[in-house]
């Protein structure tokens, strides 16, 4: 059953809608899958599709409600724009919203209101168009105790507990977790693309979480044990030292040794390599630059510092 969460007339003969598909079988818990806050991140679209297919084919195996929100920023998705077109703002910096004086704030407010009280929420992202990520859950350290046990069930490669930042208090996940609605932020793949294997991996993880919550009687494929970085591990960021074009030589998910090259920045104009990007320490390269053009300072990768391969 498709329901409107938000329905607002736009100026010229169009209605803005945020919709969810509610799949229900009897009483029980409620799990929500949200994606598309950033209009250029599409990886969650495939997860919504797969989950819908599985649930539609096996409705009797569900106990409770699954609510799928595939496009909470429909204007952004429709115009391949990360933020909300017309406002030039990042929707994930508008939460918890208000019923005040800007349309985007009232939309954010309505979305939080609708999700509040769910037993679990997945907020699916795809990093951005610049970076490729291994499938991971990111957790604010303030919500570690509630979320890490849930994240371990989600069939992800990595669970990254990171430090709190005041800026992140404007995100959907922070707003929901602050009111006691557990919300896992998933980052996987890359912006503007679909990665089939990651979509399948996360879909299986969501079904596994549903099983743990007593919502799903169906079969679950084997579930990964993630690497859990509980906030004590060091994560190092690789930043470009110069402007140019980047060619990666290591895939995301590779284990790299100290000093190992993960890619290089080149100058097509003069035909020379201007910089080799190397790992300052050994560990898991869980993020790698995807978009070739780089400025000085552009993020090239992230390494979870670990001495030995665990995955």
């Amino acid at each position, binding site marked *: 059953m498709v329901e409107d969460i938000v329905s607002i*007339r736009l100026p010229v003969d169009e209605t803005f809608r945020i919709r969810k598909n509610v799949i229900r079988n009897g009483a029980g818990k409620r799990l929500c899958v949200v994606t598309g806050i950033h209009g250029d991140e599409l990886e969650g679209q495939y997860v919504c599709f797969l989950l819908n297919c599985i649930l539609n084919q096996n409705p009797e195996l569900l106990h409770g409600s699954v609510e799928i929100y595939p496009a909470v920023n429909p204007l952004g998705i429709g115009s391949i724009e990360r933020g909300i077109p017309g406002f030039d703002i990042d929707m994930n910096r508008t939460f918890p919203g208000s019923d005040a004086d800007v349309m985007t704030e009232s939309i954010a407010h309505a979305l939080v209101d609708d999700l509040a009280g769910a037993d679990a929420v997945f907020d699916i992202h795809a990093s951005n168009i610049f970076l490729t990520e291994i499938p991971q859950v990111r957790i604010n350290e303030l919500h570690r105790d509630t979320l890490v046990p849930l994240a371990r069930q989600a069939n992800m490669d990595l669970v990254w507990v990171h430090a709190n930042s005041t800026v992140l208090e404007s995100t959907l996940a922070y707003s929901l977790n602050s009111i006691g609605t557990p919300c896992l932020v998933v980052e996987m793949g890359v912006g503007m693309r679909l990665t089939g294997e990651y979509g399948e991996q996360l879909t299986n993880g969501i079904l596994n979480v549903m099983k743990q919550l007593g919502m799903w009687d169906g079969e679950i494929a084997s579930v990964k044990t993630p690497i859990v970085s509980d906030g004590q591990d060091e994560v190092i*960021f690789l*930043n470009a030292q110069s402007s140019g*074009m980047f060619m990666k030589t290591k895939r995301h998910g590779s284990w790299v040794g100290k000093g190992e090259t993960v890619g290089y920045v080149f100058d097509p104009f003069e035909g020379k390599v201007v910089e080799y990007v190397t790992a300052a320490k050994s560990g898991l390269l869980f993020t790698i630059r995807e978009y070739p053009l780089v*400025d000085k*300072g552009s993020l090239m990768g992230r390494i979870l510092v670990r001495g030995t391969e665990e995955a």
Partner: protein
Amino acid sequence: MKESILFRMSHIYRDDFRVRAFTFGQGEKALCIVGSVRGNEYQQLYICCRILRRLKRLEAEGRFAEDRQVLVIPSANPASMNIGKRFWPIDNTDVNRMFPGYALGETTQQIAAAVFEVVNKYRVGVQFTSFYTPGEFQPHVQMMRTGYENPEKARDFGLPYIVMREPRPYDTTTLNYNWQIWETDAYSVYSGTTTRVSEEGAELAADAVERFMVLNGILKGTPSRAAPSRIFRYDDLLKVCTTQAGFFRDLVKNDERVSAGQALAEIIDPCAGDVLETLRSPADGVVFFRYNDPLIYAHTAACKILRDPQQRF
């Protein structure tokens, strides 16, 4: 006047990115003025043009105090200004959401760090900032309540209004907030417009800065006369919001006195031509903010009214 480059960064195909600064006087770092940080802040850059021209003249006239130094940074983001983009050309990040910056971090963090390392040494900081919502405000000084704010000193600008605002989570990475935290008296001066240059607004802002400099011993001379500023909380403004979307037709101007019940604007159906909604003032007061794009969304503030001080609700 001395000209310097605070930050330089090469680009594979564009000219070097430079943050340029101008220093007047010497001695105590008394005042730092920052113009545009975003690529569409043309008015903010223009105010700096006016101020720089004025400061050059005042310096030639020997009006600077002997032990006071003033720094002006007209634009911290020329790369975005030159392509008409509000945020950073490649990754669309906002330099004014990167303070205090990180010298080893991402590009806009590095820019913010280079700027902040210089500007945080000044006793007073003035930034000509902008709002992201389309519309024009009455000229005013705005301050966030951080525990370090100094609203009484803001009266020295001589602008008619001083607005106090509670910081929101994302404000903690703005220049103004970090200035305050690092013990610089920080003031955001709004001259009304952002993408449109207003000669009147620029002159008003330049006058305000000059008055502040005189009253604080940075410039010698007699301060210009100004009426006392009214201090109020941003949340005290009465928002008049749309419930319908369509063409926005305003019926009042900024600074206009309005009465309770007076029509402020109409929302018109762009296809059928009907008036969908007439927005009315909830109280007697002055128009402090007025929306100014042709089309308006529903649930959007079309006007903000500063009610008369004696009214009680």
